[in-house]
């Protein structure tokens, strides 16, 4: 037999083996440069104008009305439709240019730590999306479609590539609360949609115990637990053969994963062996469980242990009002930890094959929502252009891509849709986005829906 047949024959197929791959056997399609993804989703949509998209010309346009030639009839949300004016609100914050591999990257004073690792980062200023509100926007970014029901990115990866480390799930989610106006985060953003439910994201709790009830109760030894699981698996297999319900298999796989996590999660969360100077790199919040800093440390440890898709949410970016004050706190919470994460991955040699993605569901408007004063403004949702960045994993280091107009309202050069971004990331993972499909309701579904092209300029 060929090697592929040998590998397929020895692939653990029974439910007793957790994290078996369900996807097409010929993956990966091309040589992958990224083997795992750390996806930092800034929920609520940070203002690109105050963080990355530097528009110095707006200083002279303070309080001017946004010209119609720029707005071009963009639909308003219910929150600003009552406004009679749309005054331009330039950013209050100073921008500094950091040297990178090309012409330098502008980063605002809110993110000094991130600026200093700007030579690792590939900025994309020309992202665009269709959704104008959070729920469809996040659903679109996670699943490739504004309407719920489809698998999330991490589930596709778990399905297609499977898990490397059998002791840990392939898809882990952690949530950090924020300081500002926080929108809801639905569990279906890391759900498996129509894929077998063993591919859903495993959310670690933000409190002291990332996973509850890890220890067996008094009187139950690990061997007892093993025998119990084997019996349940045998009964479950028999039931599966009778009814062919895939959820039985999924349940058994997850029970097996829980058994393995009883040992692996304490090892994961035990920071006692971590060098204090390493932890200090992540900032003062690192010992507060559930903070962005603590989650970044865990993300690095998960990456070390081979978890494929690590998703971190930071809530609270939805600054419709009181933006300057709130964004200072939000940015401070992620600036140092995320920069430390990049440094830590880089020096361990993990950044080469770990893709770090910082993204949000859309951007924010150049015009002020609510009253514009010299020291205060708010911004509404803006889907037509926003900024994301990526680092590591085969992405070109230290470049900027795409350009918006002077108002950071429309895209002038190299628009990148969410599907294009997904296709590019899948390509970095070695997957042809048109060939990772799942048959459901009579047709083949894929993450990129029916569009998306790989953006070659972003590949190293």
């Amino acid at each position: 037999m060929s090697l592929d047949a040998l590998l397929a024959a020895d692939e653990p197929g029974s439910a007793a083996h957790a994290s078996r791959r369900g996807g097409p056997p010929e993956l990966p399609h091309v040589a992958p440069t990224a083997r795992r993804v750390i996806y930092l989703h800034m929920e609520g949509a940070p203002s690109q104008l105050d963080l990355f998209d530097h528009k110095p010309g707006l200083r002279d346009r303070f309080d001017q009305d946004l010209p119609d030639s720029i707005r071009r009839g963009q639909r308003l949300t219910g929150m600003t439709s009552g406004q009679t004016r749309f005054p331009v609100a330039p950013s209050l914050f100073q921008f500094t240019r950091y040297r990178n591999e090309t012409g330098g990257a502008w980063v605002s004073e809110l993110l000094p730590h991130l600026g200093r690792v700007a030579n690792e980062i590939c900025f994309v200023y020309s992202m665009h999306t269709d959704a104008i509100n959070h729920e469809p926007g996040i659903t679109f970014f996670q699943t490739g479609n504004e309407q719920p029901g489809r698998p999330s990115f991490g589930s596709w990866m778990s399905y297609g590539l499977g898990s490397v480390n059998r002791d840990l799930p392939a898809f882990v989610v952690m949530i950090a609360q924020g300081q500002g106006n926080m929108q809801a985060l639905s569990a279906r953003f890391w759900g498996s949609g129509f894929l077998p439910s063993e591919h859903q994201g495993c959310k670690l709790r933000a409190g002291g115990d990332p996973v509850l009830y890890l220890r067996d109760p008094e009187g139950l030894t690990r061997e007892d637990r093993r025998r119990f699981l084997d019996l349940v698996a045998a009964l479950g297999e028999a039931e599966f053969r009778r009814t062919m319900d895939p959820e039985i298999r999924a349940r058994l796989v997850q029970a097996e994963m829980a058994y393995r996590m009883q040992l692996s999660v304490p090892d994961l969360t035990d920071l006692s062996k971590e060098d204090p100077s390493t932890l200090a790199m992540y900032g003062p919040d690192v010992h507060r469980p559930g903070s962005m800093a603590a989650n970044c440390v865990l993300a690095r440890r998960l990456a070390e242990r081979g978890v494929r898709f690590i998703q971190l949410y930071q809530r609270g970016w939805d600054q419709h009002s009181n933006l300057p004050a709130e964004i200072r706190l939000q940015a401070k919470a992620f600036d140092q930890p995320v920069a430390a994460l990049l440094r830590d991955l880089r020096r361990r040699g993990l950044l080469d094959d770990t893709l770090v993605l910082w993204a949000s569901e859309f951007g924010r408007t150049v015009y002020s929502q609510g009253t514009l004063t010299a020291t205060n403004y708010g911004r509404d949702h803006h889907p037509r252009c926003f900024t994301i960045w990526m680092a590591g994993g085969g992405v070109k280091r230290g470049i900027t891509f795409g350009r918006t107009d002077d108002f950071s309202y429309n895209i002038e050069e190299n628009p990148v849709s969410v599907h294009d971004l997904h296709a590019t990331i899948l390509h970095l993972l070695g997957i042809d986005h048109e060939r990772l499909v799942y048959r459901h309701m009579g047709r083949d579904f894929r993450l990129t829906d029916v569009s998306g092209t790989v953006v070659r300029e972003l590949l190293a």
Partner: protein
Amino acid sequence: MTVSVAALCIFAAALGPSAVLGRLHPLVLHAPLGALAALLVFETVAWFLGLEGRRLAAGVLVWFAALSAAVSVATGLVLALEGNHPEANVASHRNATLAFTAALWAAAVCHVRAALKPGPGRSALYGAAVLLTSVLAVPAGHTGASLTHGEGYWTAPFGRAAGSPPAESPSPIAGAEPWERVGALSILAARCSPCHIGGERKGRLSLEDRDSIVAGGKSGPGFDSSNPGSSILLTRIRRGIDERGHMPPKDKPQLTAAELQEIERWIFAGLTDPTPEASPRPDDHSSAGPPLPAEGAIAALRDRFVHVEALPGAPGRLRIELAAGARQLDADEVVALLGPVSANIVELTLDRGHLGGGLGGLLAGMPLTRLELRETEADDALVGAMAGHATLEVLVLTQTQVSDASIDVLAALPALRRVYLWDSRVTAEGIARLRGARPALRVDAGDTPDAASEAPAGAPDVRSPATPAAVNSVCPVSGKPADPAYTIVHRGRAIAFCCARCPATFWENPERHLANLPK
């Protein structure tokens, strides 16, 4: 009768005459055969019993046979236009049946002659013609059955009785030797004959070689080079077994998963096979690719929760990560498990695993391009064992005991492009020495400098837009004392308000409130 003729005409009009008439051939051909058989029986019985009026009855039968044979030939010629079968087979059947029909007509004519002028000579001629016709029925029938049921239909039972393999062949992949790369064409030959190879060309499609697949048949070309995933050859075999058009048909042996995978790979590769030297024979030492690992070696690794995956590209290359196995395996087990597959390992991650003696020698023999040993007991001895490794490109030695003594070995690794030495025992001098010896080698010791920032020279402080001092000290909307924090700029003048709500009121009707401002 009229109704059936009318129905036939409607069908013919709707489907085209050839579709209907041609398909009558397999029906009509039974008429002359049946009549011939009846004639033989009748003549034999009549000869023994000496029946009266035998001539008339025989005449009816022989002329019925002759006429229906002519109709059969006509419908057969129409059916041949469909082109469902290879030319050669059709030609042989046609010739055989024409000979048969000619003999049948000769018999009919002889019968008339014998009836008009009875005599032993004419009767003998008639008898000879009938016998000749009966003999010619055999090749005509055999060639016809071969078209429909595949070659060797009549001879197959004799072959089977003689002990030759049955007509249904087992999966060619399962039966192949380990070093044989079974091509997609052999799979198609095993699974798609006789309907598309050899005997017939159902749907005008032959699957014998690449050109005929590309040419395709009634449904179009079998291979779409611009969009291989939608090639008909692929979509037909991928379809669910109960769906219309699924190939092979439900009642025939189906493609196994491995065969489907091979055909899919073949189609996406543009109907090409990988280079032959990728899978060497066991006695062929000159080939380039690694031999396949022993059976069970991969299963043994996976049973201990080691991650094994194939790398795309040339076959036989593996990536192995200890992952969950790092915690459970001791040093000897690691060596024992990796040994059987060591000739195939191209990328190896042993992070947090237990290493021991014997591993160095094993690593030196692997065709590695990437080796990761984070947080292990890797030391100078292990690195020394890998001296001169020809293919190693990326080496990760962070958090290990490797010291300056290994610098010379690292500097001498010919293919090395990147090495990571953070948190090892290597000192700054060692790093500097390595960088000096190999300037093109990327040495990461956790000391990558930060991106320098450039403040634009002479730039003004743009912390906030220049806001002049407010022109008023009393809020124009409420009359209360104004708070400078709530200042807006209107027509070049900074106007202060008492709270956050008054500016909105002001904006609704600025003219009304401007009067309250000092001039």
